[in-house]
């Protein structure tokens, strides 16, 4: 038996001569705090914060700083961060654990892998063997060194399957290509060639912004032009842009502006496409909007899956500071951390405020009570991208394009079983059949067109026989129970199993549900369980869909049943046996 040290006074007690009223069943704690903040960890975190003034809303940014430096979030660093930020441990933990990109590690004895490989398993990648790729990678690499995890859509669906090694993406990924990237040990993003400030300016860029600021234009004039152009929110909701500007402008300031760069809808990659080619066209659009609505500051919320875009925007905003076009601090980039739900505008605001990305209840709408409680103008990246051109070239330039009575053109992200996937600038209202034929080089060899997703994971699924209806907000699509959303078109073929497609999409919603409300949290999980069964129970799934659509707080839960309802409607033979 081990020798224990006992004090003579304790000895008396042990022999039953109690000296106090307490039962003494337990021992006193040696510390007054459960988790002590150690000086080393405090020092390390303070060094990362580099003397900046602490802001509560920067919690996620601080967590990124720690994870970027130490490869993971160790509890000792989170304890120190909590103390420095005057937050409770739980406040830090609940935020860190909400976002998929944070790796929480218990203590210093846990081994932190050298690199994380994320394998996209959203629909377009899944169609091209993402699961098999992930299994192979898992088997090939030592988990202590290489952590292989699944991940949702990375916005590179045209080059599926895709992996991200550290922050470096591998397109058309194979085990060999990923292996080479790991060996190469350069985990920084590859920065593509893009239009720099000088070129953009030489081609007439920022002239419009300057003329606005010089008083040569009025906000009303801009709003009228935008309204006439019928430009609508291209993040998926299609709200008229001009009207949004007037609404927000009418609320008392100070107002704020947010840019939703959390392009997470599976199958969507058009915002990335534009930002990686012509960032200044977007920035000018944002600054014109900010000027028109007279906002105090712009926050750009950018998904963490787009590290190259992050780098580009940082560099180019710095150039704008140098050029005197923007005051430092007027534009602030906030980096997401892996959460689809933060593409929902109010969840995004929560995330910018440094919290878990839970959608807010409406009313109030964010135009009135938004970021930090202020009236907020929120826009998708692409919407702003077209602002300059519409104003300069006139409303007609935009609105006159379009088919079947639709106005404008759209950036369709096309992926799946087509010969030439990619971002296709095509008229609004084009049918999917025309889109495939005119813009995508037809179907992929050996595949026969069977079905399509008009608007990513949540926009429903339509069969080939409905391939001639116009693709735009509302209209016939809506009548079919579908929507165009972010214009993420995924083409399915005769080789794709609709049950598997359905399960893939529902699993995505299950993983990405914020968990706040019962219909979505429990509903997506129950739906996955029911859909994994060989035969679907149409009645149960119908009832489940109803509560999800009617009683979820936000669009995620409300739209999550769309694909399964589409499959039940159009492909019942494949699932109901």
């Amino acid at each position, binding site marked *: 038996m081990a020798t224990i*040290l006992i004090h003579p006074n304790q000895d008396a007690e042990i022999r039953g001569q109690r000296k106090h009223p*307490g039962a003494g069943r337990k021992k006193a704690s040696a*510390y007054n705090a459960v*988790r002590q903040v150690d000086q080393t960890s405090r020092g390390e975190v303070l060094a990362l914060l580099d003397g900046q003034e602490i802001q509560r809303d920067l919690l996620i940014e601080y967590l990124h700083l720690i994870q970027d430096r130490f490869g993971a979030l160790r509890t000792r660093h989170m304890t120190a961060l909590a103390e420095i930020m005057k937050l409770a441990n*739980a406040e830090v933990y609940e935020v860190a654990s909400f976002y998929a990109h944070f790796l929480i590690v218990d203590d210093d004895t846990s081994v932190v892998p050298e690199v994380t490989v994320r394998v996209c398993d959203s629909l377009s990648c899944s169609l091209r063997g993402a699961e098999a790729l992930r299994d192979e990678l898992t088997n090939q690499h030592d988990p202590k060194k290489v952590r292989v995890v699944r991940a949702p859509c990375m916005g590179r669906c045209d080059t599926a399957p895709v992996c991200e090694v550290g922050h470096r993406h591998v397109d058309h990924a194979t085990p060999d290509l990923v292996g080479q990237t790991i060996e190469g040990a350069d985990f920084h993003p590859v920065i593509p060639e893009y239009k720099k400030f000088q070129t953009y300016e030489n081609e007439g860029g920022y002239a419009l912004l300057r003329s606005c600021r010089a008083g040569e234009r009025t906000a009303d004039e801009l709003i009228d032009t935008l309204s006439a152009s019928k430009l609508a929110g291209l993040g998926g909701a299609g709200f008229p842009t001009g009207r949004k500007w007037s609404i927000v402008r009418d609320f008392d300031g100070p107002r704020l502006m947010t840019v939703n760069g959390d392009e997470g809808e599976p199958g969507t990659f058009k915002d990335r496409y534009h930002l990686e080619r012509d960032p200044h066209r977007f920035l000018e659009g944002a600054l014109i909007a900010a000027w028109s609505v007279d906002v105090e500051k712009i926050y750009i919320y950018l998904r963490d899956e787009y590290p190259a875009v992050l780098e580009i925007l940082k560099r180019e905003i710095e150039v704008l500071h140098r050029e005197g076009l923007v005051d430092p601090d007027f534009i602030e980039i906030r980096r997401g951390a892996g959460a689809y739900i933060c593409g929902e505008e109010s969840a995004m605001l929560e995330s910018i405020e440094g919290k878990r990305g839970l959608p807010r209840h409406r009313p109030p709408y964010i135009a009135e009570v938004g970021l930090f409680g202020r009236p907020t103008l929120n826009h998708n990246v692409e919407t702003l991208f077209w602002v300059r051109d519409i104003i300069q070239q006139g409303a007609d330039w935009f609105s006159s394009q379009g088919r079947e009575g639709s106005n404008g053109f759209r950036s369709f992200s096309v992926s799946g079983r087509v010969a030439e996937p990619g971002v296709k600038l095509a008229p609004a209202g084009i049918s999917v059949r025309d889109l495939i034929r005119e813009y995508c080089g037809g179907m992929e060899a050996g595949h026969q067109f069977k079905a399509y997703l008009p608007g990513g994971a949540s926009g429903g699924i339509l069969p080939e026989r409905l391939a001639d209806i116009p693709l735009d907000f509302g209209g016939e699509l809506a009548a079919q129970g579908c929507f165009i959303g972010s214009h993420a078109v995924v083409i399915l073929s005769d080789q794709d199993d609709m049950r598997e497609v359905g399960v893939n999409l529902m699993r995505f919603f299950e993983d990405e549900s914020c968990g706040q*409300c019962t219909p979505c949290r429990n509903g997506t999980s129950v739906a996955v369980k029911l859909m994994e069964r060989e035969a679907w129970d149409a009645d149960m799934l119908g009832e489940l869909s109803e509560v999800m659509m009617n009683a979820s707080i936000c669009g995620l839960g409300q739209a999550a049943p769309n694909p399964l309802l589409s499959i039940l409607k159009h492909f019942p033979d494949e699932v109901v046996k």
Partner: protein
Amino acid sequence: MNARNTPSQTEENPTPISFVLDGKDVEAFDGETIWDVAARVGTDVPHLCHCTQAGYRSDGNCRACVVEIEGERVLAASCIRPPSQGMKVSTDSEKAVKARKMVFELLAADQPPRDEHPDPESKFWHWADKLELDAARWPQMRGHENDASHSAMHVNLSACINCNLCVRACREVQVNDVIGMAYRGAGSKVVFDFDDPMGSSSCVGCGECVQVCPTGALMEKSLLNASGTREVFADRSVDTLCPYCGVGCQTEVFVKDDKIVRIDGRDGPANNNRLCVKGRFGYDYIHSGARLTKPLIRREGVAKTTEIKMLDEDFSEHFREATWEEALEKAASGWRAVLDRDGPSAMCGFGSAKGSNEEAYLFQKLVRTGFGTNNVDHCTRLCHASSVAALMEGVGSGAVSAPFMAAEDADCIIIIGARPVVNHPVAATYFKQAVKNGAKLIVMDPRLSSISRHAWKNLQFKPGRDVAMLNAILYTIVEEELYDAQYVQGMTEGFDELKDRIKNYPPEKMAKICGVDADELRAVARMYATSEKSIIFWGMGISQHVHGTDNARCLIAMALTTGQIGRPGTGLHPLRGQNNVQGASDAGLIPMLYPDYQPVENEEIHAKMEDFWGKDLDDKRGLTVVEIINAILDDQIKGMYVMGENPAMSDPDQNHTRQALAKLDHLVVQDIFLTETAWFADVILPATAHAEKDGTFTNTNRQVQMGRKVLEAPGDARQDWEIIQDLARGIGEDWSYDQVSDVFNEMCQIMPSLNHITWERLEREGFVTYPCDTSDGPGNEIVFGDSFPTASGKGRIVPADLVSPDELPDDDYPLVLTTGRLLEHWHTGSMTRRAKILDDLEPEAIACMNARDMDKLGLAAGQRIKVSTRRGEIELVARQDWELPQGMVFIPFCFAEASANLLTNPQLDPFGKIPEFKFCAAKVAAVELLAAE
């Protein structure tokens, strides 16, 4: 009942919104949601995540209350949705009814089976039963391991529905900030800190989460069997009060088979349903096997020794059981002998702030009329006597000028020398909430505490240098003309003298003395003085010094110079330590004052009281607690009566105190346990615990509240008021009270503070705040609005000069020792250490120190150490504590095995006669350990 915080129907918004609810025209008043209106008009809408208790924000997450609104595509959570004019709402549409039922089915599918459920009678099952669910058809999602790591609470997340109420309870209501909702989606999970087991998290055990949990996922362990299934269901409950601190929380006590099995908070004026770990879980001391159930008499020839043994159940060597007749006769005859031989001045009594107002009143009446002396005092002497001395001098009243909830209205809150998170945990929740709502909190204390995180400024000044710090603030107020000249002119006197005297104390000079930068001192002065509404709370860090009265004078001067008193959100509030210390003081358990602070040496009052009680009374002020101890050692006092007080633990320099107690000719102790003081008794009388009696109690907010009997006293234990009456009769008094209310009624005759407060009213309304102007209106929470109860009607500003602590550290005793309480233990631990859960949470004597001091002395956290002062030494466990500054040791005084008061300095404040518990010189050394198998 309590109208505070309940939604106002008419007063705030006189023009209500009209809308249609289920086809009927209804009106919504200011702030009402659809759910509120539905509930008001009697429409039952299910709800789970919604809690109608004060402080709970609607969250709308569970969707159990969704309703259909015409023109809206999706359903809305009625608990969070305000109606708009003309809106058409259906609670009973097919779509809404179906969705609500499905929500319940999905949740129910995930629940553990009902017969294994932690609470088959929970709110969740209540609604589930009404909705006739078919949950079995849905696949079950998840299971969680039970977490039984906490001493008081059991966590079964399999029963959790993620409604978030516990998170709001912990973060927004109690602001203890332990619980979070972590992860996401179906993996979302209630966590403690970093997903730690509850028992090893920073949980402070308030149990708010348990009280609001709608499923039983968080449950009192007392109601569960070993596998976590509920098997205890109370057979009745009683509305009463918490027996512990001065906050005065209202409780509902649940009883099963004559045992308390659970306590909930009620919507009391001072707690809005909240409780702390002591109030909720510290109840089982009354069922302790150590309760006194028979009168005891010291065996012949057993000497009184100063080395105390805790006898509890095993007292037979020293005491023998006796009948009540014998014990009462023995008690009274012992006193009669002293009286006959040495006269009234040889007698004294220590009453208790734990008992009721009626008991306190009878006790002082017995000492004054039966013994014929004013030598009657109680633990207020050790707590706030100096505060009261300064307040009486400055504002003419010893009570608070505003309740602690006034913090909610304040822009700037100063907490000095108080640790409300530990000593007044429920009051602290209001302070923390106020900060969340934008108030600036300034904490002034040598030690930090968990509230420091919420503070705008923490002034961690050097121990004992309060006056230097506060004078620097007063200097700034004067020099920078931050004072309210009009208020000073109209409402105060003494400002010119302050102006003159304060010149010696510029912040730049005081900074070196008090250890706080001059800039900080000035910033705090500006914030306090220029905020529209500022309020000051203080505790024993102010009062328990030889300069305690001076400390309080400075705070009073701050309030009077700036006019930060007498309005909502302003004031002076000394936080009272015990449940009835305000009431016991009001009732006259003070040697120089009759009930309601009427001076015994005032001829007119003396004559009035002689007339009222029909007895000749002592016309000289009596001795205070420490003076009585000294008088015993000086052979002047020989006979004593102690009721519910424990001077052998609570008084300073205990070797000295215990020698005195051992020296008494005749000591009668009336208590519920054989306390350390009872060890010295000749006769011990078994009394009733708080839960075993009816009576009124007055909390720190001047709220007189009704405490009700929950259980019968054990064995032959008797009601305290009856024992006092029998003893009075034994020494020749002809008392004939038939019931407690008779005593209260007598008090009302001579205590103007109780005007318009009757026993019947208290029985009916539960509480009334004094002073109260009408027999049906609420009392005045905020006083001194237009004058002070002083002779001139003005507040008196009294400047203070610097006085050093009595015993400064030196080479031999280099550290500062300070004493106080722990969250889990109250006063001398006689009750809390016999409460199992509290004893499990803080089971051993500890001394807290800064990590750097421990390193310097080569001490490891958790090792045994010896702490010594010039008066004694004790051995205990060293706790590494980030809250302590360097150079300081903190020891709680609740541990009999290592009594902190063996070490403390009995030197007194000259005005309040309060000892300097908060400062003496000490040294610390490691204790060598023996190896044992």
